[in-house]
């Protein structure tokens, strides 16, 4: 081994250590940012090490790629609004996975003769995971951006067709494993994996996106780890595995927060065929409330809890809610925010939005922390959230969301629900909360309603 190769390996070791340290520092918001600087340093070290130690002979393509990538990446980093964070992250999963898949194709073109059975297996995984994550993430991004309809796209025999495609994929994988020279099979495997990514994500509804995002995150990481096995490169294995496991842990957490299994999310097609039978439980009338009455309730409350949901993000109402909360705090009201783990479209979505609006994180409470507070709360304000506050999940064992842990806003003395219209939420499920005597509805765009409320509170 030459001196430059030793240097390269040293940078890889440093990068691995820095990546792990940076994730450790993620455990607290005060240290997280410094941690990311470490990770950036590690990445830079690994890149410089590679450029020096990997016997680079042609610089044109490298410089072209680095330049274009940096410009596009920096542009995205600066311009993407916080409300579009789920789409941005999905797109980013697609880019990462595509890079892994392309590296795999390159290895196939050049080095396939030298790869032993284990590396061939890793290469197969890399190609399959990379390709299906690429298209799957693109579909997810399309759904989140509203380019593709958010409702699950389902048809008869879908699961059977999916299984058939999966079988074909497995067939290609094993054939390729034993006959690495068959490039037609290799490229079919690539094509089928691209197709499978699409089919995997189209039947999943928008409300389940937090799970899908986490899973795709996991796959993208595992694709990078598989690349590490193919290239015999430890830093790729370490970084990929960290990403893979982080995504996996998040998927499990998200599933727990919905009381569903991962298979159920992937193949259940939640939200398509459920509108009928469960609706019978709810009844009565929804009581509407005027801005002034609502403002009066808020202004004379002692404790108020805001419960944000995806509607807060679509209405971009995070600043409006913070302004209202500040006015209330000035009047001596204790204000908290209750965050359900699956509120929004990706893990932690609401926290980021509220942080953007300058809400201190000490006012953001997790579900387990805040649920005991609801009975002593005067007003709970639900902003564009639906399923995560649906008492049916707790009370009605027949409901399809039965057993899902919820924010128990119905235990508060009164509830104000900010809602766009009288329609049902994304899951198409009737919500008995809206019919309770303690609940009143405030219809309209969340942002407008909140700023009107703020004005009315000032007049009180």
């Amino acid at each position, binding site marked *: 081994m030459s001196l430059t190769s030793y240097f390269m390996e040293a940078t890889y070791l440093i990068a691995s250590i820095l990546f*792990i340290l*940076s*994730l450790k520092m993620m*455990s607290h*918001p*005060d240290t*997280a*940012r410094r941690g990311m600087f470490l*990770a950036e340093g590690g*990445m830079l070290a690994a*890149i410089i090490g*590679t*450029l020096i130690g990997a*016997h*680079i002979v*042609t610089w044109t*393509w490298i410089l*072209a*790629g680095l330049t274009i*990538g*940096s410009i*596009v*990446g920096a542009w995205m*980093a600066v311009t*993407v609004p916080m409300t579009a964070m789920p789409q941005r*992250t999905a797109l*980013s999963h697609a880019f*990462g996975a*595509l*890079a892994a898949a392309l*590296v795999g194709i*390159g290895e196939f*073109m*050049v080095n396939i003769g030298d790869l*032993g059975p284990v*590396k061939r297996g890793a290469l197969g995984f890399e190609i399959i995971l990379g390709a299906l994550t690429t298209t799957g993430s693109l579909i997810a991004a399309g759904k989140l951006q509203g380019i593709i309809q958010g409702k699950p796209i389902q048809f008869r025999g879908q699961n059977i067709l999916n299984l058939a495609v999966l079988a074909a994929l497995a067939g290609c994988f094993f054939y390729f494993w034993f006959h690495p020279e068959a490039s037609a099979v290799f490229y079919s495997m690539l094509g089928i994996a691209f197709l499978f990514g699409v089919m995997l994500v189209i039947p999943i509804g928008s409300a389940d996106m937090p799970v899908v*995002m986490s899973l795709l*995150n996991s796959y*993208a*990481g595992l694709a990078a780890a598989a*690349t590490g*096995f193919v*290239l015999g490169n430890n830093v790729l*294995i370490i970084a*990929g*595995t*960290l*990403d*893979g*496991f*982080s*995504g996996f*842990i998040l998927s499990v957490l998200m599933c727990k927060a919905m009381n569903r299994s991962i298979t159920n999310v992937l193949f259940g097609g939640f939200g398509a065929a459920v509108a009928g039978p469960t609706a019978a439980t709810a009844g009565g009338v929804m009581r509407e409330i005027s801005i002034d009455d609502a403002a009066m309730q808020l202004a004379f409350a002692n404790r108020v809890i805001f419960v944000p949901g995806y509607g807060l993000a679509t209405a971009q109402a995070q600043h409006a809610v913070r302004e209202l909360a500040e006015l209330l705090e000035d009047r001596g009201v204790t204000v908290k925010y209750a*965050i359900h783990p699956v509120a929004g479209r*990706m893990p*932690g979505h609401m*926290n*980021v939005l509220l942080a953007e609006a*300058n809400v201190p*994180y000490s006012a953001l409470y997790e579900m387990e922390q805040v649920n005991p507070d609801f009975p002593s709360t005067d007003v709970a304000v639900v902003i564009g959230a639906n399923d995560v506050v649906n008492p049916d999940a707790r009370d009605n064992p027949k409901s399809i969301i039965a057993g899902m842990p919820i924010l128990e806003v119905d235990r508060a003395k009164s509830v104000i629900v900010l809602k766009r219209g009288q329609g049902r939420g994304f899951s198409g499920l009737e919500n008995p909360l809206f019919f309770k005597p303690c609940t009143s509805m405030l219809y309209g765009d969340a942002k407008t309603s909140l700023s009107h409320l703020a004005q009315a509170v000032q007049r009180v």
Partner: protein
Amino acid sequence: MNPAVLIASVYVFALAAFLGYQVISRVPPLLHTPLMSATNAISGISLIGSLVLAGAKGYPLPAHILGCVAVTTATINVVGGFGITDRMLKMFRSRTAPAKKEEK
């Protein structure tokens, strides 16, 4: 593959998985979005594989071109991912800072 190298790789994988589980389960839900964005940026480490493909000795032109595309997408991931993670983490603060009124 040399069996010793393979075994070492499997060790690395298993230890990284264990360590990842330990480290990441400590991250509070508050930071789950930045976490996802950060791990995604870190997995942009496939950039180093792409760099080799795009410019190293012994690879033909088609491989260089594939590598160039891979370098581009991986760089977008790294630069964009770290950039946006930093932007998010900057926003998390513990208490109402005096600077808050300016941003309206």
